[in-house]
């Protein structure tokens, strides 16, 4: 494979602006991607990344004055068909694939599109599908139903589909959001393979470590404006986060000594075979206990056992000094334990229902008025209280949860659980899919809740997150707690070295 020696850019945008009814989504942004380059587009949600992608792919027309140069072709606007013909492809976050069709049918699908029907025989495109998969250096069975593949392999299918259409410039919108570490590594390898073949890749991700790892340059947008184009060589996650938010991130250790406070949760010798073994821990009033480790170390399984979602085989648990044994989540809620799951979007919220209804769903029996019916007054008071307390940005309490951003949805989940008045709050990966700025907001709330006396178990696979926000940090590996760290005396790199050793 040869890298295209021509330094001429695959894409060059000058002075691109886009206004939606008076709101400036983009303000005279310049953007350039070279052939064979992996280029990152970074910025918080709402910074204009998607608008930019949609302008390049012809979904939106830019405001007058823009210059678009695609593979040497200059224009002021571009149509979706022209963009496709030039080899511009987008791999959307939801992939836009067809789960009941086979791998081969998915990869070749774009050839099937067209109003005038033609005959189409599988054997005509199968060879080319194989060639494309070979180019990506992956092997997939062509006749497997797509729905039977794990997400990571569906990503590969989406990439192959773009290549099948002779893509020369590929946009990837958060391709790693739902992948594990090893799947992510495999995907990044495919991305590098693409670039090595002269294809320009524009990579969008909230995981800054990945951005720095895979790309050569990163273009940072903030509030619709270009912050700058930076080489990733020598760039740190911390610096990139600051560029994206424009704020000095409060990346300081906040740990406090809570060893004098009375314990809320005490766990002794908790074991569930093949998942975790002999777990001992104590969380005190006002304490944030961090729990980190690799995916599969047993962190979530431990959390599930603590809230009664799965039974433990051995060990004892005390809550505020009293021995407890939860047989169901309902037991745990009744005793003051709340659990915010990592897949909040699918499990934590009822998306089409209103913010207000989602907030009170776990505590309906506490807002009953006369005759045992739900009291609208009590409901709205309670909802307003939590919206204020957690500073949730909403239109109206009656709006559907699906209208909120990821960070605000996460706050609604928190509100729902805090409304149950818990004494112990378990947060499982609370920042997955939440952008840098909103993360800071969530941790401010975590700190505030702890200061009010709540005991919190914070689970995350991002080491910096637990070190900067917890009072003590536990390292879990292969189902065992293998170390306890004091954030005031531990460097991020030190703990990372332990975890990835």
């Amino acid at each position, binding site marked *: 494979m040869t890298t295209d020696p021509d330094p001429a850019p695959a894409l060059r945008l000058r002075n691109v602006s886009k206004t939606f009814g008076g709101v400036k989504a983009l303000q005279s942004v310049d953007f350039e991607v070279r052939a064979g380059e992996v280029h990152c587009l970074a910025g918080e949600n709402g910074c204009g990344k998607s608008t930019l992608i949609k302008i390049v792919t012809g979904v939106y027309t830019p405001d007058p004055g823009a210059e678009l140069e695609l593979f040497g072709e200059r224009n002021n606007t571009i149509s979706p*068909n022209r963009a496709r013909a030039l080899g511009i492809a987008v791999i959307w976050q939801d992939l836009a694939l067809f789960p009941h069709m086979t791998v081969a049918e998915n990869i070749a699908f774009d050839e099937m599109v067209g109003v005038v029907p033609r005959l189409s025989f599988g054997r005509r495109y199968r060879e080319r599908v194989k060639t494309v998969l070979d180019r990506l250096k992956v092997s997939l069975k062509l*006749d497997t139903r797509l729905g039977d593949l794990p997400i990571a392999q569906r990503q590969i299918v989406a990439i192959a589909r773009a290549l099948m259409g002779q893509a020369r410039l590929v946009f990837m919108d958060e391709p790693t959001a739902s992948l594990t570490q090893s799947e992510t590594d495999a995907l990044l390898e495919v991305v590098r393979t693409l670039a090595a073949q002269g294809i320009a890749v524009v990579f969008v991700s909230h995981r800054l470590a990945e951005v720095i790892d895979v790309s050569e340059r990163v273009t940072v947008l903030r509030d619709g404006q270009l912050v700058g184009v930076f080489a990733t060589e020598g760039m740190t996650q911390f610096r990139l986060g600051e560029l994206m938010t424009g704020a000095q991130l409060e990346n300081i250790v906040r740990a406090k000594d809570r060893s004098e406070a009375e314990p809320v949760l005490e766990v002794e010798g908790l074991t569930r075979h093949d998942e975790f073994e002999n777990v001992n821990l104590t969380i005190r009033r006002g304490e944030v206990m961090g729990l980190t480790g690799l995916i599969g170390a047993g962190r979530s399984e431990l959390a599930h056992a603590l809230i009664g979602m799965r039974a433990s085989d051995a060990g004892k648990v005390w809550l505020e000094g009293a021995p407890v044994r939860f047989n169901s989540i309902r037991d745990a809620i009744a005793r003051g334990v709340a659990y915010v799951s990592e897949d909040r979007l699918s499990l934590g919220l009822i998306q089409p229902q209103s913010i207000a209804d989602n907030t009170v769903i776990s505590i309906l029996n506490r807002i009953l008025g006369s005759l045992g019916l739900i009291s609208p007054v009590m409901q709205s008071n309670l909802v307003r209280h939590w919206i204020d307390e957690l500073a949730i940005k909403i239109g109206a309490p009656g709006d559907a949860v699906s209208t909120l951003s990821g960070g605000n949805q996460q706050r609604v989940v928190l509100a729902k659980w805090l409304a149950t008045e818990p004494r112990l709050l378990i947060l499982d990966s609370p920042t997955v899919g939440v952008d840098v700025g909103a993360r800071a907001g969530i941790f401010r709330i975590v700190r505030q809740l702890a200061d009010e006396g709540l005991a919190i178990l914070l689970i995350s696979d991002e080491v910096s997150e637990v070190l900067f926000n917890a009072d003590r940090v536990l390292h879990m590996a292969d189902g065992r707690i293998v170390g306890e760290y004091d954030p005031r005396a531990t460097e991020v790199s030190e703990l990372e070295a332990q975890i990835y050793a």
Partner: protein
Amino acid sequence: MRDVFRTYPVEARLSVVLLSVIAVLSVMTDTFLTLGNITSLLNNNAVNLIWAVGLLVVLITGGIDISFAVAASVVQYVAAQIFMAVGGGNWAIGFAIAAGLGIGLGLINALLIHGFRVISIVITIATFNAFFGLLMFFTRGRNIYDLPDWWTNRVFIFERQAADGTWSELNLSVAVMVACVLATWILIRLTTLGRQLYAFGDNPEGARRAGVNIWQMQVVAFGWCGMMAGIGGLMQVNIAQEVVPNALYGRELDVLAAVVLGGARLGGGRGTIFGCILGVMFVAITQNGLNLLGISPFAFQMIIGAAILVAISSSNLSFRLRGRAEPVEVAP
């Protein structure tokens, strides 16, 4: 073979069940596996299968059509008026008019669904009632016997007299059925349009983003279903020798049951011609077998209901066994 079971689990299981039913009936009765019984099974179910392949196309695109059987009655009635007006007509004109009227009624559904963005079950329940109401209003519920001869005369494509003097024959509707099944198979398996129909049913948003013309998908699906309704209606008159306005009322659910039994998914993206044939055959043979065995006809509905439950729930069960959470089949 394992791949076939995995890719088409419902079809594979249903064919095993069907083969066992056939085997049992062949052993337990001496009337089932006779030329006379087989030909009459084919004659009696040709129209159902014509409708079934039409409905299959709608189900693949993620829609549903409740109105097609009543639409077939409307086609019969209007076609009879037209034939009288033009002084008779013939088979060629008959097919053209029946197919044309059927497509027209199908397009009314497509237009309402696409124009108002209302899900197809709501629209077709509405058109089902509208079509039937108008039909009963204009016919005053009276049957039409005064039909052109070409329409009511039997046309045999196969005849044989057995040694005991009884006749076995296949009539024209079987040939028409074969043509309709073949045409639908070509449409959904061998054309780019067919791939787009499956894709649209599977992931409408993904299909839209890929550039699939959504309006065209609705037109093709409901137009095709309407055309099959019209052709089926034409052939049903040839068998029944009369036009009875409410004769087909309720048949839509029998056909729907057969198609769903054959593995078509009420949510789009899945369904095969082979499964469709199996589904219709299963319903037909079960009914036939119960008659031959002298079992109460009421048992039939019960068995079909149970078969649908087993077919659908076991296919979801197998997803779960493979450790993947697949959404349960839900009507749109």
